[in-house]
C-alpha cells in the first residue's frame, strides 16, 4: 500500500512538473530572447541557454522610445484610479451594507445589473460623452471612467455584510456616529477585501490596453502597453528589444503578484462561490 502511494506521488509530480513547464515556457523564452542579439533570437538550432547574455538590451531600449514617460503615465493612471476606486467603493459599500435609507435596494439592484453589462457594450457612447466633456485624450478622462466600477462597491459590500450588525449597534450605543463606526470599526475590519480590490484594480489598469488605445492619442500621454505596441511597429525585427520591453512591462505586476498572491486567490475564490 505504501509503495503504491509513493509511486502515485511520483507520477503526480512528473505530470505537474511537465504541465508547469509547458505553461511557463513562453515566459522563459521571453526572458532568454531578451538577452540575445536581435539576429540570434530565431537562429537555428534554437539555444535554450544563450552562449552570451546581452544585458545591454535592457539599457538600449530606454533610448529607443520614451519608455520612462510611458511608465510614469501608467503609474499615474494606476495610482489615481486605484485610490479613487478604493475610497469611493468602501464609502458606498458601508452605505449599502450598514445604513437603512430609502431607495437603497433599488440603487443596489442597479449597481448589480450593470456589473453584468460588458464595458464593450457602452464604450462607444462613453467615448462620445467623454469627448463632449473634453475628457478624451487626457489622463483625467481615463481615470474617471475606470474609477467607479460597480464591481468594487459590490465586492466591498459583500464583505461588510458579513461583519455582524451587533458590532455596529454596540458602537452606536457608545455614541459613535455612522462615520465613526465606518472609520474605526468597519474600515479596519475590511482590510482583506480592500487588499483584493487594490490588487485587482492595479492589475487591470496596469495591463489595460483597449481603454488607452481608444482614449489616448498623444504620444506623451500613452501607457506602457501602448508603448510596447509602438515598439513592435517601429522595431518589428528587433526581436530581442521587443522581448526586453515586454519583460519590463511585466515586472511591476509580477512583483505585486508574488507578494500578495493570497489575496488574488481569495478574491477569485470568493467571486466563484458567489456565482
Amino acid at each position: 500500500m505504501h509503495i503504491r502511494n509513493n509511486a502515485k506521488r511520483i507520477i503526480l509530480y512528473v505530470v505537474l512538473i511537465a504541465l508547469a513547464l509547458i505553461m511557463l515556457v513562453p515566459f522563459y523564452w521571453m526572458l532568454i530572447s531578451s538577452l540575445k542579439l536581435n539576429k540570434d533570437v530565431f537562429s537555428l538550432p534554437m539555444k535554450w541557454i544563450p552562449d552570451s547574455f546581452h544585458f545591454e538590451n535592457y539599457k538600449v531600449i530606454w533610448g529607443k522610445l520614451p519608455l520612462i514617460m510611458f511608465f510614469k503615465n501608467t503609474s499615474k493612471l494606476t495610482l489615481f484610479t486605484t485610490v479613487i476606486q478604493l475610497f469611493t467603493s468602501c464609502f458606498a459599500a458601508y452605505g449599502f451594507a450598514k445604513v437603512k435609507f430609502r431607495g437603497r435596494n433599488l440603487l443596489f439592484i442597479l449597481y448589480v445589473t450593470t456589473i453584468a453589462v460588458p464595458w464593450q457594450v457602452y464604450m462607444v457612447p462613453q467615448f462620445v460623452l467623454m469627448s463632449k466633456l473634453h475628457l478624451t485624450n487626457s489622463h483625467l478622462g481615463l481615470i474617471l471612467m475606470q474609477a467607479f466600477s460597480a464591481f468594487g462597491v459590490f465586492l466591498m459590500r459583500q464583505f461588510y455584510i458579513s461583519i455582524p450588525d451587533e458590532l455596529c449597534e454596540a458602537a452606536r450605543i457608545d455614541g459613535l456616529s455612522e462615520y465613526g463606526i465606518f472609520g474605526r470599526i468597519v474600515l479596519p475590519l475590511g482590510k482583506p477585501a480592500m487588499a483584493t480590490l487594490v490588487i485587482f484594480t492595479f492589475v487591470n489598469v496596469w495591463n489595460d490596453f483597449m481603454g488607452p488605445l481608444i482614449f489616448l492619442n498623444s504620444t506623451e500621454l500613452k501607457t506602457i502597453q501602448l508603448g510596447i505596441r509602438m515598439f513592435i511597429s517601429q522595431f518589428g525585427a528587433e526581436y530581442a528589444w521587443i522581448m526586453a520591453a515586454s519583460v519590463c512591462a511585466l515586472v511591476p505586476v509580477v512583483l505585486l503578484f508574488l507578494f500578495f498572491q493570497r489575496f488574488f486567490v481569495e478574491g477569485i475564490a470568493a467571486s466563484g462561490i458567489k456565482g
Partner: protein
Amino acid sequence: MTSKQKRRLKNDAIGYSFILPNLIGYSIFILIPVLFSFILSLAEWDGSSNPIVFVGLENFRHLMDDSTFKISLVNTMKYAVFTVPITIVASMLLAVLLNSKVKGIAWFRTAFFFPYIASIVAVGAVWNMLFQPDYGPINTFLKMIGIQNPPGWVISTDWAMVAVIIVSIWKYMGYYMIVYLAALQGISGSLYEAAGIDGANGWQKLRYITVPMLTPTTFFVMVMLTIQCFKVFDLIYVMTGGGPGRATNVLVNFIYNAAFVQFKFGYASAAAIVLFLIVLVVTLVQFRGEKKFVNYM
C-alpha cells in the same frame, strides 16, 4: 414632523452621504453611457457637430446585410465554441490535480495562475514569435517530430483562429482553476471515503462524485467564459489585428472599427446592442439552467 419621520430623514441623509461620491461618478461615467447606448443604436451620427439623426431600427437592418458583421459574429462563435469547453475541462482537471496535498503544491498553483496576470500585449508579442512559421520554436518542434508542413499559424487564414484559441486557453485556464479549487475544497471528504469503502477507483470517484458535485461551479464558469469570449478584443488585436483578411475579425473588432476607424457611432452602438443581447441571453439561460440541471446536495 414626528420624531420617527425625522429619524428616517436623518438616516436617508447619512446613507446618501456615504454612497454619493461613488454614485455621482458611477452615474455619469457608467450608467448614462449604458442607457445612451440604446438611444445611439437607433441613430446615425459621425461624432462631429452634425446633428444626430434618428433612423429607428435602420442600423440593425443594415447589420443583417453586412457581410463583415456576419463574419465577425460567426468568428466569435467559433472562438467561443472551442475555447469554452476546452478551458472548462482543462481547468477542472488541473484543479483536481492541484487539490492533492503534497509538498510544493502552492508553487504549481502559482505557475498555472501566472499567465492570467501577464499583460496581453507582452503575452501576444511572445506567442507571435513562438508561432513564427519559418523559424519559430513551435514549428521547429513540429518539424523535429516529423510534421513536414507545419501550419502558418497567425499568418494563415485557416490557422490564425486556432493560434488565438490556444493562447486564450493558456492565459485563462489558471483563473478558472482557482475557481474550481475553491469549489473542490467545499466537497465533503466523507463522500470519497464512502465511495472508497464501496470499492470505487480514482476514475469512478472523479466521474461519479467530483464532476457532479462541481456542476454549480461548471455552470458559473461556463457563463463567465462564454461572456468573456464574446467580448474578446485585446488578444486578437495584438496577435492578428482581426486578420489575415477577416479570419479572426470578431464582434468587438467590428464595433471598434465601426466607431473609431469609420466614425459610425450609431452603427457601432447597434452592433454593441447585439453583443448586449447575446450576453443577456447567456445570463438568462444560466438562471434557468441552474434551477433545472444543477445538482445540489
